[in-house]
């Protein structure tokens, strides 16, 4: 058998038929996954360092001012509610500055604040939700919105608000509900409340 004869045989080989249903379903499955999880890819190509620096500096200035202002006013309070994030005014200012862009405002245990922004302003308007999670050694608090996914200590936690204003947290290894405090949250101590009535 020479090369053209071999190629002729190889090219005659056909593939198993793919059903119309399968051809229809694959694009739908892919798009459903993209809508649920993925950030838009534009950022990778049209990333503007100047714009990013400007936004970053502006955000840092606001956060530093707000956090310092808040800390000065509430220095003597040591309860978890003393978080800068528990301040309706701070959250309100952030939301006004980045409408429909804030996925979360995260505060670490040292009081450092981090803004998690959407590139496209696709975060639906909904009441902000305050959450504080502590494992006894470390704690983290954040303000976010129903349907957002938050990374805490390497774990992805989905935050949801129910119809009665309660808050549900779903992590890789636990589910916690503000209305049923007995839900399995392991060793984590969780505090959550809806800030919506104050801000909306």
């Amino acid at each position: 058998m020479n090369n053209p004869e071999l190629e002729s045989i190889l090219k005659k080989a056909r593939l198993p038929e793919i059903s119309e249903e399968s051809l229809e379903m694959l694009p739908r499955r892919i798009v459903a996954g993209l809508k649920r999880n993925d950030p838009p890819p534009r950022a990778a190509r049209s990333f503007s360092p100047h714009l990013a620096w400007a936004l970053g500096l502006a955000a840092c200035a606001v956060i530093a001012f707000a956090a310092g202002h808040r800390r000065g006013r509430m220095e003597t309070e040591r309860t978890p509610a003393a978080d800068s994030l528990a301040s309706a005014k701070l959250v309100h200012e952030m939301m006004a500055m980045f409408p429909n862009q804030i996925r979360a405002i995260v505060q670490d245990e040292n009081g450092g604040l981090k803004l998690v922004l959407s590139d496209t302003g696709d975060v639906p308007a909904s009441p902000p939700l305050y959450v504080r999670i502590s494992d006894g050694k470390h704690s983290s608090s954040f303000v976010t919105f129903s349907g957002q996914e938050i990374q805490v200590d390497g774990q992805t936690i989905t935050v949801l608000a129910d119809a009665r204003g309660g808050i549900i947290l779903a992590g890789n290894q636990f589910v916690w509900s503000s209305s049923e405090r007995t839900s399995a949250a392991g060793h984590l101590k969780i505090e959550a409340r809806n800030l919506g009535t104050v801000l909306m």
Partner: protein
Amino acid sequence: MPALDDESRLVELSLSGDPEAYAALVRQHQKMIRAVTFRMTGSPDDAEELAQDAFVRAYRQLGSFNGAAKFSTWLCRIAINLSLDWRRRESRRAGLHSKWAAGVACENDPGGGFPDELSRRVQEALNRLPAKQRAAIVLTLYENQSHAEAAKTLGCTEATVSWRVFAARQKLKRLLKDLPHEKD
């Protein structure tokens, strides 16, 4: 085959965050990508899963698509490399779990679903090739890429592709020698 202008527009719309535009790109190219992943795996289920992974990865990397190559060539590169990674993982798994080795060996039997015996025999022979030789045959013979293009896709030199194609042909000739073929 979509007009290039349409394709560029769909890429632009996808970059703007329009998932339906990306769905249109998937519809246009899914048969080609599924063919590539099937030739590489010999399994319809794995081929579908790899095709899906390839489209998802392509979406995430769409910002890096600069139009230097055709969109289909760029997609094909992603699908081939995912298939090679998949093959490496499968081999490693077979090595670590000897009780599964028999099951993996059975992958060389492409099973049913083929329209005729020749098609089944050819896939069976492709499955017996080392993955990199198989990739070289899939790209140059089925996707009509030049050895230079295939080299770019596989991240190796053109000479390496030529060698892999040569070695693959030798083995395929042995495996398929009993099939009737037209003499030149």
